[in-house]
């Protein structure tokens, strides 16, 4: 056990986390140069493209240190976005130490501080690493000063390296061995192993990634999952070394994988504790928090023929994404689709993009919403995550919505802008905490519904990228939620209904009406587009009837060409959705619904 080190890398975005991981993997010879590709742990195209890690990856690196001993270095990767903070927490729980990466030219950033605090919460030993020392703008002394003043860490412990050139990476490896503690635990004790991630293998079923805290995992052993109360038999255990490497056992302190005949990631829960069915541990490991979807939206295929393909794609995707929930849904305007639950907007966007790219589906997405609670006058309590099921206002006694406790870390100069953003999002109890000179931690209670729409993007924008943000669910509070319907010539378009706070209703309704005005072509009659709460109209635009549609020149040979143009228009008309007598092109739905998420 003395030769095991479990660690993760935490860093501000762009400070070189994936590049350093690549370099460590290369230096330890876990992958030969021929197989090597940039950002090897970010396996999804989407991750590479956006430069963020969405799904954690883990790898065991064999390293022979200067003391002559061969160590197993378990690099546990962590996702870099607040939607996936539950995964970050579980990853941190599997480590004893963390490399805290600081960019030599940019110094300590807000997110570095945030990550440090998160790591300290889990009692991790921190090893500062100053990266990008090859840059002409690198200022190592300043980075050291900031590690001292902003982070309160010993600046002279910091390892210096350039993940890009490979310079100093050897020192980093030595520091991992020398300065990070080995895991503790007793291989003979009752088994306690934390599931911190799971992957789906189409041949073997679910592959659980585990950190063994106490006891030993071995082939043939009967497992008991302490939270889900299920029993499985182990088929295989081993280490993760880019591919799976079977071993006889996984002892306390190790990080590895377990295959135990689990058919779907839905059958297990990440964060659960594995124990031996016959010799059970007295209690599970702490920190269990099931990933619960907090954002809900409906997905519809643009071509209704694609419904069967969408069904298959969601089933496949969910094998590997336990946080994604979905159930059948149907809309009068858009046909069959699915009501889906997501961890947050980024998760939603990732799912949508994966469906579009990996499964080649063109999708429409309804306005995302959170789960509201409604108390009816007759005393019934309802949980509503879909506007379709929102009761008539006359039946409602009270509504309540989920609040989060937001922690926002910012340089002092952005306080004004962030306060304004928070107030705009109906934040309550805004408080400041001076962390160090010039840096502030702002805490506040904000309705989750206000956060799921672009809050994180807005925060990044008003703080020029310096702000970072984390949240935890708080409670439900009384509020005034209304359902805004969009009516086209008096007919409600179900897919465009949304739940929102009454103060926001008019603004949102008008936004939808204006987008529709821009995108619905003129028709034979005047079209009224209205936003309404119950019977009350709160926004309105109109589209005049068409008045002019005839080609100027129509003679000579361009008759074939002109006919083909009209044939195309006729074809487009077939794909329109009818709402009453009004034809609405798909583009109108796309324009309206996209503008919500993409903003």
């Amino acid at each position, binding site marked *: 056990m003395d030769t095991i080190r479990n660690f993760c890398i935490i860093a501000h975005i762009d400070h070189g986390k994936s590049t350093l991981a690549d370099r460590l993997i290369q230096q330890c010879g876990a992958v030969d140069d021929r197989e090597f590709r940039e950002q090897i742990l970010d396996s999804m195209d989407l991750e590479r493209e956006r430069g963020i890690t969405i799904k954690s990856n883990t790898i065991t690196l064999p390293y022979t240190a200067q003391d002559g001993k061969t160590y197993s270095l378990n690099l546990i990767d962590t996702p870099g976005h607040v939607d996936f903070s539950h995964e970050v927490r579980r990853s941190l729980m599997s480590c004893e130490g963390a490399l805290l990466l600081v960019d030599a030219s940019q110094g300590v950033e807000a997110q570095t501080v945030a990550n440090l605090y998160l790591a300290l919460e889990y009692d991790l030993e921190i090893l500062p690493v100053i990266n990008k020392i090859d840059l002409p703008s690198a200022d190592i002394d300043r980075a050291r000063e900031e590690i001292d003043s902003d982070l309160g860490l010993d600046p002279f412990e910091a390892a210096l390296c350039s993940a890009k050139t490979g310079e100093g990476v050897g020192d980093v490896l030595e520091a991992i061995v020398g300065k990070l503690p080995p895991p503790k635990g007793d291989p003979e004790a009752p088994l306690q192993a934390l599931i911190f991630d799971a992957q789906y293998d189409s041949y073997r079923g679910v592959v659980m990634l585990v950190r063994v805290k106490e006891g030993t995992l071995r082939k043939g052993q009967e497992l008991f999952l302490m939270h889900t109360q299920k029993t499985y038999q182990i088929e295989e255990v081993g280490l993760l070394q880019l591919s799976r490497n079977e071993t006889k056992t996984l002892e306390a302190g190790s990080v590895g994988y377990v295959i135990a005949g689990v058919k779907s990631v839905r059958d297990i829960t990440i964060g659960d504790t594995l124990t031996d069915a016959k010799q059970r541990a007295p209690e599970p490991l702490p920190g269990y928090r099931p990933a619960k979807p907090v954002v809900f939206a409906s997905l519809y295929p643009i071509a209704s023929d694609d419904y069967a393909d969408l069904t298959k794609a969601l089933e496949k995707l969910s094998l590997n994404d336990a946080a994604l929930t979905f159930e059948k849904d149907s809309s009068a305007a858009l046909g069959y689709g699915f009501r889906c639950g997501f961890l947050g907007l980024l998760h939603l966007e990732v799912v949508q993009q994966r469906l579009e790219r990996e499964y080649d589906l063109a999708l429409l997405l309804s306005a995302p919403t959170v789960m509201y609670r409604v108390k009816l006058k007759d005393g019934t309590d309802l949980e509503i995550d879909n506007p379709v099921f929102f009761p008539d206002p006359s039946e409602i006694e009270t509504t309540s919505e989920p609040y989060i406790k937001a922690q926002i870390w910012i340089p002092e100069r952005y306080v004004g802008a962030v306060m304004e953003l928070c107030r705009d999002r109906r934040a309550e109890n805004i408080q400041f905490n001076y962390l160090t000179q010039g840096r502030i931690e702002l805490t506040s209670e904000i309705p989750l519904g206000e956060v799921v729409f672009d809050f994180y993007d807005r925060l990044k924008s008003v703080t020029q990228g310096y702000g970072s943000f984390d949240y935890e669910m708080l409670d439900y509070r009384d509020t005034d939620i209304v359902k805004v319907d969009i009516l086209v010539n008096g007919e409600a378009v179900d897919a465009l209904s949304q739940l929102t706070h009454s103060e926001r209703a008019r603004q949102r309704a008008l936004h939808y009406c204006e987008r529709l005005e821009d995108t619905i072509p*003129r028709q*034979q009659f005047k079209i009224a587009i209205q936003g309404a709460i119950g019977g009350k109209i709160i926004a309105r635009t109109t589209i*005049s009837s*068409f*008045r*002019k*549609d*005839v*080609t*100027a*020149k*129509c*003679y*000579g*040979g*361009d*008759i*074939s060409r*002109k*006919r083909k143009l*009209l*044939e195309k*228009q*006729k074809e487009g*008309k077939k794909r329109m959705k009818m709402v009453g007598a009004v034809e609405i092109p798909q583009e109108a739905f796309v324009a309206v619904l996209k503008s919500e998420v993409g903003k």
Partner: protein
Amino acid sequence: MSTEPGPKTPAAAAPEMDPAFETQEPAGLYLHVPYCSAVCPYCDFAVRRGDGDRADAFAEVLIREIRDVASGAVAPPDDPAPSRALGRLATSTFDTVYLGGGTPSLLGGDPLAEVLGAVTDVFDLDPGARLFFEANPENVDDPRLARWRDLGVSVLSLGVQSFDDGELKFLGRRHSGREAVVAVERALAAGLGTVSVDLIYGLPDQTLEGWSRSLEQAIALGPDHLSLYELEVNEGTPFFKQRRRGELTELDEDLQAELFHHTHTRLGEAGFESYEACSFARAPRHRSRHNGKYWRHAPYLGLGPSAHSFAAGVRMWNERLEPRWRKRVNAGQSAVAGFESLTAEGFILEALMLGLRTMGGVDLGDLRRRTGIDLATPNRDRIERWRDAGWLHEGDGPHLRPTRLGLAVADRLATELSVP
């Protein structure tokens, strides 16, 4: 293949030639002269820059195409349909000859005479055939007018486009408003059968008042015919690029409609009939007999680069680019670059879009006789609504005759009718 026009089922559609898809009447002959002294930024016709000398050299090649097609010496390869259709056209009687472009008025008198001589030589021309000729104002003077008249030009179409110098500059024209006025006056004095003036309206930033001034000027000059086109920004033109860069904005639909209706109303008051969405005649005899052939699916033969031909449900088009066309003709090959055989559905859509843009409208009963497809029954409610909305004249049963409001939305109506 049946030669009797008669009802048929849609399943039997897509014949290579179908006489039912042709209106029985004399054919029209179109000759395309692709040269212009400069290319206007809105133009998407097959044109290239060239002076009179080039146009004259071009005439020689055109004459060869005229002779080869008429004698059946060249046949489009690979398919019997265009060959048969061309063969049919070559032996037709023609009652219109149309020289368009480009700028036919760039042609010198002698080459023009040779072209027309070849046409008379090889084609069967009706004794009452009309000769249409497009001319730019800067090419119009008394000697040339006299020559054109002597060569038999009976309809002179003047590419005035505007009487306003600023607008003319914007449109890339080479004449002034004053020159245009003089050209129209001289042409009217030259004793031709019909003088027509072409104008473009709906320019960016044009107002109703601005357009009215040009229109009144045109009415005051007293031409026999007016062709009034709204500016259309087509792909591949300099205006198209300007619009993409945001440097050119088209008028919004409401103002376009306002200008359109003002034009039709005002010309009605001034004694012109709106016999087509963009065409106005002082008397029925001044209507364009040649353009009417396009709108009625009458047979027509087009020669010169990009020219289209039509006979019995087959439409063919020549090589669009002048050098390619020239190479083909000089090599003794057919210049036809492509063709299509109309399906019943395609024929119907064309008949609707063409018919609904003319005063005469479209007779669904006639379409049914030609194609076997009944549009009147499945569209009964829709047609009733259109009559209520004032787009179609009342009565007439299955004969749809557009009102002025209907002419303005003819394309839309054509696509709204459902074809079973």
